[in-house]
């Protein structure tokens, strides 16, 4: 074919430059969050390392007394870790079953109309500021609990657990429901066609096929419970106390302190910027970061291990 009749397929002028500019803008946006994460990790590490130069990590991780600002100072993080676990377990006991059953209802039982009202309504729960949850627990939940448990403290782990549990229900139900809704209808039809009841379809087909999404929602919700700060600081108070497993009632009915609450207390107090107490804040922060990071790894592993993959 001669050049004269060849179609003009050349690039318009400036097109390369524009394409390059688009690519650069998108890349910078993607880079921004990575850089921020890196900066946070480095800051945490830096200050935590200067702390660990004076307090051995073993003493930090195994110490049973947390008293960073008052003599005699002690930097044992165990009371904070166990306090956090108490809230997390309590919240999980509420949110994981309720969230899963809510998701099954929304995905398998609710009509389109009910779902279109209920789903956004549940997600509103996730939009309520956590400080509101905190005061709700303090002002309404704890007094209500005191009817059943007269010995309950004003600040207590039970009402904090309940409120954090309610707070993370939307996270479980919403992510799980998305996973269930993406299970192909052809699998449901196969099951209904064999004479399965709605309950059997839900439990033997839909839940197994969306188990990786459900597991992800669980881990994300637990991470959220571990990291939750404001509500637990308000509702559970600031009493660093090593959890005594032989006395579960005492654990839940009294004040505790979580890792996050301890960090808030340190940051808001008048400890100076160079003091060991101030730097212990970063050591606690690093511990928290490591725990949530591990949970995310576990979530990925669980998701890939137990998936009944549909194609």
């Amino acid at each position, binding site marked *: 074919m001669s050049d004269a009749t060849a179609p003009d397929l050349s690039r318009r002028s400036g097109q390369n430059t524009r394409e390059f500019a688009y690519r650069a803008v998108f890349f910078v946006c993607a880079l921004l969050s990575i850089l921020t994460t890196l900066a946070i990790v480095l800051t945490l590490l830096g200050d935590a390392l200067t702390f660990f130069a004076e307090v051995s990590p073993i003493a930090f991780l195994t110490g049973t007394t947390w008293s960073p600002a008052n003599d005699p100072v002690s930097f044992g993080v165990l009371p904070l870790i166990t306090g956090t676990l108490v809230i997390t377990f309590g919240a999980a006991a509420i949110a994981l079953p309720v969230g899963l059953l809510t998701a099954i209802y929304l*995905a*398998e*039982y*609710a*009509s*389109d109309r*009910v779902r279109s009202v209920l789903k956004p309504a549940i997600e509103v729960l996730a939009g309520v500021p956590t400080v509101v949850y905190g005061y709700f627990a303090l002002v309404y939940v704890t007094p209500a609990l005191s009817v059943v448990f007269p010995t309950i403290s004003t600040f207590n782990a039970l009402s904090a657990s309940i409120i954090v549990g309610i707070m993370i229900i939307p996270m479980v139900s919403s992510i799980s429901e998305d996973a269930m809704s993406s299970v*192909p209808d*052809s*699998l*449901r*039809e*196969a*099951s*209904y*066609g*064999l*004479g*399965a*009841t*709605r*309950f*059997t379809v839900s439990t*033997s*087909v839909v839940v*197994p*096929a969306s188990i990786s999404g459900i597991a992800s929602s669980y881990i994300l919700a637990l991470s959220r419970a571990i990291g939750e700060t404001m509500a637990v600081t308000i509702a559970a108070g600031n009493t660093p106390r090593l959890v005594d497993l032989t006395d579960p009632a005492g654990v839940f009915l009294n004040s505790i302190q979580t890792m996050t609450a301890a960090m808030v207390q340190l940051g808001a107090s008048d400890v100076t910027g160079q003091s060991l107490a101030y730097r212990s804040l970063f050591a606690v922060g690093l511990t928290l970061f490591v725990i949530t990071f591990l949970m995310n790894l576990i979530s990925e592993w669980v998701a890939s291990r137990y998936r*009944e*993959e*549909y*194609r």
Partner: protein
Amino acid sequence: MTQDMTTSDPDESDGTTASTSPDPGGFSEARTQTTQEGTSTAPTVVESRDLAVYYGDEQALQPTTMEIPEKQVTAIIGPSGCGKSTFLRSINRMNDLIDVARVEGELRFRGKNVYDEDVDPVALRRRIGMVFQKPNPFPKSIRENVAYGLNVQGKEVTDEAVETALRRAALWEEVEGKLDSSGLDLSGGQQQRLCIARAIAPDPEVILMDEPASALDPVATSQIEDLIEELARDYTVVIVTHNMQQAARISDKTAVFLTGGELVEFGETNRIFENPEHQRVEDYITGKFG
């Protein structure tokens, strides 16, 4: 998913055992033992009487009256959107799963109108199996797939039952020894035969097939067709297909639905293809339209 799908007790005795159930309309006496043609003597298993289906305001199926004979292959053919799948799915009430679907008229299974108030669609579907257009094995092992219906229906799961179903579906020799591998690792044609094995394992009376070979290659299609003819010895088979040659090859009776959800002609397959009564059916079969 719908609201109105019955969630009542899956107990099979619940009003759907046709032979013992009341027949308020008294129509079962009038149930004919012959078809429109008067040439067949096979008893009628499924019978529609002025059955019409609506999706919202749209009528997907015009009032349809038709009798499906026992242990034969009845093919339903017609162009896209002619209501043939809608009709098929109204037999085992799969249309219940669509929120906006509404049914008028009657559909009788062994004389019992399955749209009566006291009918549990779950119990109905235990007697009428279904195979779908796209192979849809569960993401479970081959064994679990075949056993699924037995489990759901509270029937005993034995190795023999699994083997028998797989043999009847002409799949046993290909999967023997790897029953614990995923059903999804099979080829498309094998997956569809697995779905057939799954459907027949609980031993239903009727098997509905919604274009079961349309997603398969010619070799797999031919295997499925051989299998369908084989199945008709023991089961009543109703198959929707848009492939007229397929209908001509494997069916005893053919129903032709045309645009608008209308059953235009129903009769012996040979007669329909060689000497249709209606010009529209002839046009469709000879490829002038559709």
